């Protein structure tokens, strides 16, 4: 044993008799004890392979990425001496997580294990998006109470990619259980977790907005409309959409731009795009990403490859209901202030799926009656018959769904497209509408343009997506809750200059 490998925390945790003497002042430190007595008594001074702990605890997962993100989750029975600090030490350096960076949640499995012990938040986890570049090597994970060390373990973290880290932690976030969970979510997101998610996602988007572009079908055709579709997990929708949309009246000057968020489908989609373009005689572009960069970023990327001034952002599970829908679309789009509008969408059972959206404020409360606000978006008359006034009336609405958005390209670009900090999908459409309104452009709902929307069938859904939905809802709230009347007209923004500051 070389003295520089001596670990004070482990020595005191391993030998309570020494810790007692240090606490009582008989010894200055554990190191002093080791030099005087411990070495000759053959006491273990290094960290060692086994965890040393003064309390019951354990780690279930320890993951890192080369770019410097780290995630650890486990449990601890620290009712008597609560953990206030976690230190992860590696040859590259040390990362300290103070009490505000340690997330806690109840774990029924641990409560059952500890049986008669007091109920508490035994679950413990940490997540940081940017500790800095790491090398795959052993790390020491130490937990401290205010009074001193609680446990120490040496472990080799599993190395994963940034995207795997995002999916893992968002999945963990969405599946954790607890009391007053919505409130706990918001609290954790507010105190730093939200920014960590967004920072990691930015890195993924930045590093994966690349890869190839395939262009198929007739060349040199004048294109006045670009149907932009973000695919994820369900590639079979490409041929279906090209076949059905190409049958629409006035589709002769339309093109398709598919952006693929599932790299495992690249080969399949290239083949399908080539075949569909040939069979249905329409230009088809396929843009591949390196990872799932989310709905907003993918659409922003696809728009860069669109060849027209009118963007029709369409979900993969949207299909034409009326053969003349595109003519009606073109007529509506030709009116001067119709920079952005949505369509009448139908469920497959014939009831209304979308007739515009509005914002809803709600609050969540914890066991101490502390309230936190959350925004969300709701559809007007969702599931109602299609003859109710909301559905049949073309009008200005607070927002429209991202399942179908017709947008003037210059307007889209002026707003820098969707906010890419919304992870995966959800709520970026509402945010875009708010930014449009803040920029002076009303949001229209056009009842004459009718399409089907097989909602939720155009992509796969994973626990990480649910986690992202919670994150995005918090982020929308974070951006816009200061605006008093989210559903008012454009005068609301004029009266709230602060709202404009939210526009990037």
């Amino acid at each position, binding site marked *: 044993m070389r003295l520089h490998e001596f670990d004070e925390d482990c020595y005191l945790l391993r030998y309570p008799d020494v810790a007692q003497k240090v606490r009582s002042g008989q010894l200055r430190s554990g190191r002093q004890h080791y030099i005087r007595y411990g070495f000759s008594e053959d006491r273990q001074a290094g960290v060692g392979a086994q965890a040393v702990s003064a309390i019951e605890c354990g780690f279930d997962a320890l993951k890192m990425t080369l770019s410097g993100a780290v995630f650890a989750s486990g449990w601890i029975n620290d009712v008597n001496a609560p953990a206030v600090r976690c230190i992860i030490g590696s040859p590259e350096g040390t990362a300290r997580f103070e009490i505000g960076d340690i997330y806690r949640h109840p774990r029924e499995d641990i409560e059952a294990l500890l049986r008669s012990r007091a109920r508490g938040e035994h679950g413990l986890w940490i997540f940081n998006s940017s500790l800095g570049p790491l090398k795959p090597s052993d790390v020491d994970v130490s937990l401290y109470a205010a009074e001193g060390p609680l446990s120490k373990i040496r472990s080799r973290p599993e190395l994963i990619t940034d995207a795997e880290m995002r999916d893992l932690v968002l999945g963990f976030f969405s599946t954790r259980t607890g009391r007053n969970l919505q409130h706990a979510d918001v609290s954790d997101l507010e105190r730093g977790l939200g920014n960590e998610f967004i920072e990691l996602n930015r890195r993924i988007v930045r590093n994966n907005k690349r890869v190839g572009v395939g262009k198929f079908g007739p060349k040199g055709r004048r294109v006045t409309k670009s149907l932009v579709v973000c695919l994820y997990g369900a590639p*079979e929708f490409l*041929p*279906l959409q090209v*076949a*059905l949309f*190409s*049958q629409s009246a006035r589709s*002769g000057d339309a093109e398709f731009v598919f952006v693929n968020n599932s790299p495992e489908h690249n080969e*399949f989609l290239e*083949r*399908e795009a*080539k*075949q569909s373009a040939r*069979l*249905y*005689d*329409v230009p088809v572009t396929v843009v591949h990403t390196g990872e799932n960069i989310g709905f907003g970023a993918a659409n922003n990327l696809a728009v860069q490859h669109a060849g027209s001034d009118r963007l029709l952002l369409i979900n993969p*599970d949207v*299909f034409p209901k009326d053969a003349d829908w595109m003519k009606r679309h073109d007529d509506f789009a030709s009116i001067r202030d119709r920079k952005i509008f949505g369509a009448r969408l139908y469920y*497959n*059972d014939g009831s209304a799926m979308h007739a515009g959206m509005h914002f809803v404020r709600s609050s969540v409360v914890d066991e101490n009656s502390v309230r936190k606000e959350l925004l969300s978006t709701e559809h007007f008359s969702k599931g109602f018959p299609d003859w109710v006034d909301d559905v049949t009336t073309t009008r200005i609405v607070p927002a429209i769904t991202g399942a179908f958005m017709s947008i003037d390209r210059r307007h889209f670009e002026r707003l820098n497209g969707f906010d890419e900090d919304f992870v995966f999908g959800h709520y970026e459409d509402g945010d875009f509408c708010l930014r449009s309104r803040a920029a002076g452009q009303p949001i229209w709902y056009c009842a004459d343009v009718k399409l*089907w929307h*097989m*909602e939720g*069938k155009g992509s796969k859904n994973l626990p990480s997506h649910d986690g992202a939905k919670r994150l995005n809802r918090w982020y929308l709230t974070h951006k816009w809750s200061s605006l008093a009347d989210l559903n008012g007209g454009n005068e609301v923004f004029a009266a709230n200059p602060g709202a404009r500051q939210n526009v990037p």
Partner: protein
Amino acid sequence: MRFLPQIRVLGKMSRKVLLISFQHPDLVRGGQQQICYELFAALKKTQLKPIFLASMQKDILPGLFKGGAVITGFDGREAEFLFLTAGYDHDWHRNREPWRLEIFEEFLRGSKPDVIHFHHFMDYGLEYFAAARKYLDSVGGRLIFTLHEFLAICLAEGHMVRTFDGSLCNRASPMRCHQCFPNKTPEFFSMRTMWAKHHLDMVDTFVATSLFTKSVYVDWGVRAEKIIHIPAGHREFPGRAGVASSPGQPSGKRNRFGFFGQLIDSKGLLVLFDAIRALRHSGVSDFTVDINGANLEFASSEFRQQYEAFCTEEETRAKRGVRRVRFNGMYDVADLPRLMADIDWVLVPSKWAETFLMVVSEAFLFGKPVICSNIGVMLERIQDNINGLHFTVGSSDSLASVMKRAITEADLWDRLSANVLPPPTADRSAQLHMELCY
């Protein structure tokens, strides 16, 4: 997609007709391929130049597959080809291997048909209609589709039989289909229907071999004026009238029954087996049943088990006395005179509505009355107590009762047989196709 105006060149006698079949009847027996091939054979006798393209899956006869080839010849026969298929998606009825379609398109450009007549899209894909349409628009040709089964409508093998209780389905809808396939959403069925209708819209003329089939597709949304009714034709056999008027057994009894068809679940064989057991249980044992057919490998494992169990029963019984049930195996159309000579009645216990039933034509060809389930196309082709007898679909007791009547009622066979009219000939069917479709 912009389609060019249709150009019909009547009287152009050298027109080529590409007939597209699901499988070749010489490789896998089945009604659709038989009907398609009979039409091909009849058209060969006209001024038209027919080409027969039949699909083949690798797992049936892998030795037919050639590296890199999608379309190959067939046993050295002129104008007969195989489409070697793989990657078929039965949910969407599309092919997941687009390169096969490219070769199909190349085949169209090379063989230059004026008419493309699909008898099936299975093994090819609905998108092949789009390729055919695109090609035909460039030459002013016509796209024809003969409706066999209800595959575009129904995911349950196109049989329109409810999966959970075997009852007949009279109407497809996303909700009803979801009931049959709870693991697939109603939205899936909506999209599937959109996909199918989009491609069927490209067809110039549909051919329904029965009015019943036409009515099902019209109810589903195909415009009635686009569907013409042409019964499938059968080749003629020299001297068939003599067979029809044959007296039967020396005893004068009309107690010999025959089943002809595929040995698969939907054909109702298990109902027949139970009826045979019931007949014997009621003391009637003086009858014979010939089972003629193949494709047991395509039946469900449950069906195969019960089929084998019945075979074993009969084998045991035969060892104790006279063999009453004979399993004759696969037959060829050329075998029909011999096989029909040994029976009096043809049994058709199908559990689904069927769309034409070539076996009824075969029975009528030889003057045999038909005992059939009382549903679907059978009601159209067989009139109860006129040229055959009906029994309650799926009911072995009902079938046993009808078989007992057939055996015991004096002069019944003679009366019904006298009302049997010859089925349409393949030549007549070909002539109607030329006049009405091509």
